[in-house]
């Protein structure tokens, strides 16, 4: 029973990071119909920027803020410079561009920061809480912080999209580019902003994962792009709520696989989930109704 509780809690926590990362993918997919395979590398870059600052004596919080801000800038620059020329072209072009970007950014990290693993000191203790004489291994001050951070970002994003004029303009640009332009919405700016926001959320996921694994290499986000992508497909690539639910479901499912079946099967299990979703419900759990063309 204790193991089950631990595995479930651990699953919810890693799942929340998958959710954040899936949310970043969904933000970009919704606005530009591109799966950003460079998302992990971009997040790794901002995490390494934070590590450089922390190593130079700054606090974790300074590192976090700088990581998020550099994510904002990198996301905007990538959209303007690299993605804009392939937008609206064949879908494969954009896929290849983001894959190329993924390799280039990873190489850039190695050039700037070296290829060795770096230690990452979490902002809070990673030692599990104790209730009586049982230890909740997966519930620690740091994982509580992770949960709260992801929750805050989600609430902020929902508030942005639901209740602000900017959010409405972004949604209109995502769902009806041409119509939005005819209605006077600066669609180009909204797409840049979408990429920038996605990179911020991705950067946060990078910082949170780094704090849990305690060691980071330039490739440390590679597995997260796989899990984040599976989570996004599971929830439906078009649905932010789907991304969150997909992330949590995937996190818990993989946690059970890790606990009851073994660590080596986790990657395989993720792929099985991906294949089953694509076979049974290709639109994902939260696919929006097919657009009726009148």
């Amino acid at each position, binding site marked *: 029973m204790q193991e089950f509780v631990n595995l479930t809690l651990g699953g919810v926590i890693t799942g929340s990071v998958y959710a954040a990362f899936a949310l970043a993918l969904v933000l970009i997919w919704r606005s530009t119909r591109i799966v950003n395979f460079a998302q992990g590398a971009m997040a790794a870059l901002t995490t390494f920027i934070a590590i450089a600052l922390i190593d130079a004596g700054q606090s974790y919080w300074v590192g976090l803020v700088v990581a998020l801000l550099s994510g904002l800038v990198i996301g905007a620059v990538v959209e303007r410079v690299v993605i804009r020329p392939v937008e609206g072209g064949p879908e494969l072009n954009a896929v290849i561009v983001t894959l190329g970007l993924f390799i280039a950014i990873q190489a850039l990290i190695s050039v700037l920061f070296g290829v060795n693993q770096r230690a990452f000191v979490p902002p809070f203790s990673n030692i599990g809480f104790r209730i009586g004489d049982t230890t909740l291994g997966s519930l620690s001050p740091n994982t509580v912080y992770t949960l709260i951070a992801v929750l805050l970002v989600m609430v902020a994003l929902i508030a942005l999209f639901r209740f602000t*004029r900017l959010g*409405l*303009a972004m*949604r*209109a640009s995502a*769902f*009806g580019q*041409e*119509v*939005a*332009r*005819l*209605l*006077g*919405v*600066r*669609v180009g700016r909204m797409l840049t902003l979408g990429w920038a926001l996605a990179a911020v959320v991705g950067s946060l996921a990078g910082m949170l994962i780094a704090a849990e694994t305690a060691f980071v290499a330039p490739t440390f986000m590679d597995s997260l792009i796989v899990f984040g992508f599976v989570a996004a497909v599971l929830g439906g690539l078009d649905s932010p709520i789907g991304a969150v639910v997909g992330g949590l479901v995937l996190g818990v499912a993989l946690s059970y696989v890790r606990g009851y079946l073994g660590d080596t099967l986790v990657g395989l299990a993720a792929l099985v989930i991906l294949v089953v979703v694509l076979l049974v419900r290709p639109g994902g759990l939260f696919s*929006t*109704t097919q*657009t*009726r*063309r*009148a």
Partner: protein
Amino acid sequence: MAETGAHGSTAASAAGVGLSKGGGTATAPAVLEVEGLSAAYGPVRALDGVTLRAESGRITAVLGANGAGKTTLLRTISGLVRPTAGRVVLNGEDVTRSPVEAMVTKGMSHVPEGRGVIAELTVDENLRVGSLFRGKVGQDEFDRVYDLFPRIAERRGQTAHTLSGGERQMLVIGRALLARPKVLLLDEPSLGLAPRIVAQIFALLRKLVDTEGLSVLLVEQNARSALSVADTGVVLNLGRVVVTDDAARLAGDEDLRHAYLGF
């Protein structure tokens, strides 16, 4: 332009004669002037020197068969397609090179083919997108649109993909009105709608034009309905203007109807 002579009814000879429904027979000031507009998709010429004007407080209907260049004409006017030659003048200002996003601020609302409802947003959100560029807009303006179209008022919280074709058309016209346009460009509003709904929508357009001074440039394949509501008709064929004349007289010209309008 050989056909023009054959029918002997160019814009010049028609001016001042017609049975305009807009009141008065004199030429009204133009809110939109299109001069020698040409556009091409790669090597294919879609528009070939189109000249026409939309008069203030009138409905101008551009008619023609499939592929005549009607949709391209509207898309080139609003800047979605870049012209290879010619000018677009809106309220005396040359807007030929203006970005699409700026057109609505200059007083032009373009409702594209297929209506341009954003299906993922609610009815209310669709309307709000239409007024975003104006900054804060009072609730009374939204209420006025809902008064105009009670059908969509009942559905303001629903996502727009649940609307019928007629309701979608009402929504996009309402949304365009929220931009307070001087000229409204409508691309095939009758497409796929029951005749009764088409009649309703055209009657409403007529009312808006007569009571609020709106100007409409309407593109239609359904020539009979369009001519019944329009003041002026422009017949387009293979990217060229064949005839410009008073709508009622166009409807009465049997040869022309048979040759280009199919009724």
